């Protein structure tokens, strides 16, 4: 089941560490996302797998074979570059056919597969058009088709959707997922967009400063973040510094009974897990609504509390909601709150 | 087999990794060419300036300062170089004062006028300088010059305007010949400007004159200055135009060197004039470029 294995992969540029001991196993047919802010090493990792950057240490093995000895032209990978990198002097069909040409595939078979793949990405009508006459979304599909038609062992996607506008991006996310599921190619996706990673990936590798902070399915990464970085990078979260007692935590005027060690701790609670209690209660912290923003399907609140500014997200169900300046009581379930005591890996 | 390897090695160096074959190999042909055909001849010329020369003995390969002393002390040479740089300065000023506004006006035109007039203004750059200078000789040459004849016939002047063999004539003709360089430099600077900046200033209440003075000019100035450097060095080293318009009577540095080399045959002295010209220009160009970079680097990084 292990198709691609990265073993303690590292890359240093002079003194600067771009990738730090990254270990990852990818199963056949899996879509794994490398997610992180710019400079976290995700693109460098991709370049090492593609062969355009030699690793400083560590190894990359594909189907059990070490890739270090294999030249980039022979690795059999399909790459979609961030800028698409289409050949401007060739039509869409010629672009897609190029890889097959390099493999020495006969004309008739080439044309058949090109037509098939262009149809797969929905561009059958644009086969004879040049890239400069295409929209960004169309170019992106040509790039995808070009990478898929060669039936690559692994598909590498470098921020494939970052150049598209928001609505198109969302549509393409769904399509990309469907195509990948249909074709079944093992895929590695590099992105800085957490919603994209969560939408597309079977597993997410959250990277920060060259290191993998968590490798887990999207749901787990979101609900049970391993570190504060992961918690704040995926979705929004409220990070509260507080002091815990042996039997629970005190936040403002609210108490949450939990089993924990006494001392300073950090609590994180997702904004959508916070409710407005109808009146003051024991496990509710009181505050005043500072800002309220309407976002269509939800409301976003900034609430002033004794422990600082807290963000609350409530679904727009049509019910009455607090307004700016209102006094509110914020409550949540103990199990939705993640407590971290310094020195412990996870609470 | 060996040839194929070299070719593919060279090709490799142009594609993927920097880790591949060195760029030194790629630049080697051009480098060798330049060392052999540029550096060596220039070095030889400088060396030549130290040689001795006599009308009967020809060039004597010794190392003496005779030519340099002559150039340094003889008032004739001072006058030549003074004239050369005076002409160059005037030409630079004229091209700046006339060329910069023209570039600005061109920039504000809409296509197709813009492209058309750009062609008209820049095109002459690629037309033979001899042909262009000939045109000036035809326009103002003595009493048969077209303009002179017309003005005399109209009764506006009684004698032809002096042009040929005058410094004014050389300045005017050189201004024409070198104008495209200035327009080009300012045009290039203007292309880098964000057109919205002018609109922003207008929306904040600035009048047209203020916008020109406070917004456009400061941004265009580096372009004007780099154009000025180019025009000055080309004007100071100009040959064909001063030779045709100035003739034998009005020499500049370049025509002086030509004279020494091909008429008097005193090569060492000619080499001295040439070396001096080269040194002066390189100093001025490099110095001004440094100044330019330092003062304007922050704005345009």
């Amino acid at each position, binding site marked *: 089941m292990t198709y691609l294995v990265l073993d303690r992969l590292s890359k240093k540029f002079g003194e600067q560490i771009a990738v730090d001991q990254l270990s990852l196993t990818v199963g056949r047919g899996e879509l794994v996302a490398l997610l992180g802010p710019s400079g976290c090493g995700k693109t460098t990792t991709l370049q090492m797998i593609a062969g355009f950057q030699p690793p400083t240490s560590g190894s990359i093995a594909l189907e059990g074979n070490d890739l270090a000895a294999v030249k980039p032209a022979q690795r059999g990978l399909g790459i979609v570059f961030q800028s698409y990198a289409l050949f401007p002097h060739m039509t869409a069909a010629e672009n897609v056919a190029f890889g097959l040409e390099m493999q020495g595939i006969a004309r008739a078979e080439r044309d058949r597969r090109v037509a098939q793949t262009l149809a797969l990405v929905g561009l059958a009508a644009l086969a004879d058009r040049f890239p400069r006459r295409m929209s960004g979304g169309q170019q992106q599909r040509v790039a995808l088709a070009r990478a898929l038609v060669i039936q690559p062992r692994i598909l590498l996607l470098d921020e494939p959707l970052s150049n598209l506008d928001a609505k198109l991006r969302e549509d393409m996310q769904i399509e990309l997922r469907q195509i990948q599921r249909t074709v079944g190619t093992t895929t590695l996706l590099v992105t800085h967009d957490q919603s994209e990673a969560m939408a597309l990936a079977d597993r997410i590798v959250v990277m920060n400063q060259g290191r993998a902070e968590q490798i887990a399915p999207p749901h787990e990464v979101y609900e049970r973040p391993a570190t504060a970085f992961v918690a704040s990078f995926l979705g929004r979260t409220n990070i509260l510094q507080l002091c815990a007692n042996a039997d629970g935590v005190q936040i403002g005027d609210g108490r949450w009974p939990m089993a924990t060690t006494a001392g300073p701790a950090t609590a994180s609670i997702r904004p959508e897990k916070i409710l407005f209690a109808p009146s003051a209660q024991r496990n509710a912290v009181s505050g005043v609504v500072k800002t309220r923003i309407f976002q269509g399907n939800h409301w976003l609140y900034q609430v002033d509390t004794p422990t600082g500014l807290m963000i609350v997200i409530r679904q727009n169900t049509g019910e009455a909601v607090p307004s700016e300046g209102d006094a509110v009581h914020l409550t949540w379930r103990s199990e939705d709150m993640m407590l971290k005591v310094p020195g412990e890996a996870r609470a | 087999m060996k040839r194929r390897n070299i070719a593919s090695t060279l090709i490799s160096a142009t594609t993927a990794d920097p880790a591949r074959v060195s760029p030194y190999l790629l630049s080697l042909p051009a480098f060798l060419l330049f060392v052999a055909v540029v550096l060596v001849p220039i070095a030889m010329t400088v060396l030549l300036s130290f040689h001795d020369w006599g009308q009967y003995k020809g060039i004597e390969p010794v190392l003496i300062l005779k030519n340099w002393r002559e150039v340094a002390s003889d008032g004739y040479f001072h006058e030549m170089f003074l004239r050369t740089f005076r002409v160059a300065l005037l030409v630079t000023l004229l091209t700046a004062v006339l060329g910069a506004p023209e570039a600005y006006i061109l920039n*504000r035109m809409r296509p197709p006028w813009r492209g058309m007039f750009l062609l008209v203004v820049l095109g002459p750059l690629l*037309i033979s300088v001899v042909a262009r200078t000939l045109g000036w000789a035809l326009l103002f040459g003595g009493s048969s010059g077209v303009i002179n004849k017309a003005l005399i016939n109209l009764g506006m002047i009684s004698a032809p305007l002096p042009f040929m063999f005058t410094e004014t004539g050389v300045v005017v003709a050189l201004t024409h010949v070198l104008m495209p360089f200035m327009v080009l430099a300012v045009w290039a600077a203007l292309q880098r400007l964000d057109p919205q900046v002018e609109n922003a200033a207008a929306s904040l209440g600035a009048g047209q004159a203020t916008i020109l003075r406070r917004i456009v000019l400061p941004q265009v100035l580096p372009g004007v200055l780099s154009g000025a450097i180019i025009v000055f060095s080309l004007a100071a080293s100009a040959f064909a135009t001063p030779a045709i318009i100035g003739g034998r009577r009005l020499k500049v540095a370049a025509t002086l060197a030509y004279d020494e080399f091909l008429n008097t045959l005193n090569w060492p002295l000619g080499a001295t004039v040439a070396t001096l010209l080269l040194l002066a220009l390189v100093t001025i160009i490099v110095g001004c470029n440094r100044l330019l970079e330092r003062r304007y680097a922050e704005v345009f990084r």
Partner: protein
Amino acid sequence: MSRNGPLALAFHGAFVVFMLAPIVIVCAVAFTPEGYLSFPTQGLSLRWFKAIARYPEFITAFWASIWLGLVSSSIALTVSVPAALAIARHDFKGRQTLTALFMSPLMIPHVVLGIAFLRFFTQIGLGNSFLGLVLAHIVVVFPFALRLTLASAVGMDRAIEHAAISLGASDMVVFRRITLPLITPGLVSGWALAFIQSFDEVTMTVFIAAPGTETLPVRMFLYIQDNIDPLVTSVSAVVIALTTCLLVLLDRTYGLDRLLIGRGRDEA
């Protein structure tokens, strides 16, 4: 952007007249039916154009210029391609110095180059030879070829080459099928600009061209030194006509400003 006012347009008009007057006058005088310089004329005549045929030295010089231009710009371009690719794609020690060296002919006065070449070629026995002339012209047009080749190489998205490699292309295939086609427009215009520079070059050439290898500008220049008559204006008119055609062609296909600076009038 606001339009140009009447004052600006008047200035512009005068400017254009200033730029075109000498060129127009040369062409106009060339059509004179008289045996001497005269303008305006009673009619148009081609007599001075036909007269060119009686001066074979102009025709020889014309072909010498063409031949010289073709050879020197072609060689300069060929040598500039690897140099441009090296400079554009690799950050190596001495890159700045090397680039400055290659661009130096732009900074060295042509009169100095002419003298230097005269001395150099005479010393090594290439004096008054076509080969010497070619070498000199290659060096002088090289910066123009290099600048445009460089602009092409820099302007190319490297990821495109990586894409080709990832699809299995060997280095030779990448160069032949991808790199070369994409930088060719820059190469062609670089070649054209180099050719024009060589064709027009007079200052340096006048030092090293011998009676047998004279180029057209040199021939015209020497002729003018003796006298100015309609013959040289008709020759000039022909040169102007040919150059203008080439100019317009270049502008249409590439853009004159892009040719001379590197960036076009509508590009950011």
